[in-house]
């Protein structure tokens, strides 16, 4: 099994929740200067629940598919639940082993979410 299996490619080609929100409560964007992947996540949060989420940006299959999967996962959930999401949850969503370089791509969306939603600057990400 390799990185370029159907499910990932489907998320890449037809991403869920792609776009931006006009009046988000939370909007945050980060990039990975090593490969130029860039992701922005917009959230609307009502009573601790994420009612709307969009992501935008560009990059490789892994970074974009992971962002798409993450937005599906968090929509409708409470921030408290979302706060518990870890590196391993993202890897479980992707479901295939990744090397260290692609790991950074996979975790970019989670990094953006954590930094935006909780102000966790410098989240250690892959070292967690």
């Amino acid at each position, binding site marked *: 099994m390799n990185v*370029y299996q159907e499910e990932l490619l489907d998320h890449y080609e037809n991403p869920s929740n792609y776009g931006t929100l006009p009046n988000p409560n939370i909007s945050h964007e980060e990039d990975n200067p090593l490969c130029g992947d860039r992701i922005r996540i917009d959230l609307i949060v009502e009573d601790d629940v994420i009612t709307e989420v969009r992501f935008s940006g560009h990059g490789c*299959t892994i970074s974009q598919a992971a962002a798409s999967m993450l937005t599906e996962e968090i929509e409708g959930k409470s921030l408290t639940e979302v706060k518990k999401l870890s590196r391993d949850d993202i890897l479980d969503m992707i479901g295939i082993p990744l090397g260290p370089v692609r790991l950074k791509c996979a975790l970019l969306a989670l990094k953006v979410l954590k930094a935006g939603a909780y102000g966790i600057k410098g989240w250690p990400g892959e070292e967690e």
Partner: protein
Amino acid sequence: MDTSQFRPLDVERIRADFPIFATTPPLAFLDNAASTQTPRPVVEAMDAYYDTYRSNIHRGIYRISEEATAQYETAREKVAQLVNAPRARQIIFTRNTTESINLVAYSWGSANIQAGDEIVLTVMEHHSNLVPWQLLAQRTGAVLRFMEITDEGLLDFTQLQDHLTERTKLVAIGHVSNVLGTINPIQSVITAAHAVGAKVVVDAAQSVPHFQVDVQQLDCDFLAFSGHKMCGPTGIGVLYGKLELLEEMPPFLGGGSMIRSVEREVSSYAELPAKFEAGTPSIAEAIGLGHAVDYITDANLAALQVHEQELLKYAHKRLKEIEGLTLYGPSSPHQKAGVISFNMEGVHPHDVAGVLDTHGIAIRAGHHCAQPLMKRLDVIATARASFYLYNTIEEVDRLYEGLCRTQKLMTRSQRRSVG
């Protein structure tokens, strides 16, 4: 070029020296600008050191230490011959090109560069021939100036005359671009730099492994390269310097081996090359590099160059057949070494490399440690294939087919732009 002077490479025989290719399907290793594979004779030479005369060099009063010293110094002589250095002691063993350049920046730079002095670079430098000069400029107040490139990826030579003034103390330039493959006209750069009294450092990491480089003919002041890009092991690099410069320069790293005598407060330093080789060096790796020099010179550097040119020409032709593929760098293979950088429209270079990997083809994708050049090319990253003496026309065909499959897989529907 007259090819009757030498035998063409016997690529099949060469490949038999590399066990890594004995897989099914064979690995198509096209990332040689990053690091090359190691042939058996090089590994065996290093094994022989470990198995039969493993010891430290220069100080042992026993037979195997003398043997290790002799082998280490033989390697230095082989490297000196390879680049036609007048004397073996002008060859300093370092860890790699990066360390060689840092040695010059710290030792020569600290002694010779002052506030307001100018250091001329090109926009296509590898970070290893850029960051050491940024650090030197920050320490001293010197100014960095950059020669630009043309849209075709050639050095804009007209800028050289503007940049070279009496304030110029140093020109640091790559012989061959690790991204574009461009072979820079360093002979002319060196002549022009010397005319204003500037010294020249040549980053030869991408040239010495691939064609004959003669430091006396070039008249360069310093030249740096790495063992691991020329069939040698990692952990061994080379700095060549002009004798009078190396002799005047203060030490770089302090420690064992580099001293003559040590008192509590001061020391006097060893003669060249020991002055710049503090601590126990990479002994096995130096010996391995000596054998790597034998390996590529036995194969014949001129034949190697012709072989790489053939691969490059063929790769240019095949890759141009793919619609939506942009090639970077000189359009004529004659102006470049065996490096080909490209991007596939709508596909991130990481994905290009990732899909090719699933077909047993290893290429590079990223910024190639040349971020200012990426900015100049207005790209985030590129994919890059680079060749060496063991690569074949069939591997170029596999690259072509792999790219066609990548395109088919990754652009099944017209999706949003990947930037």
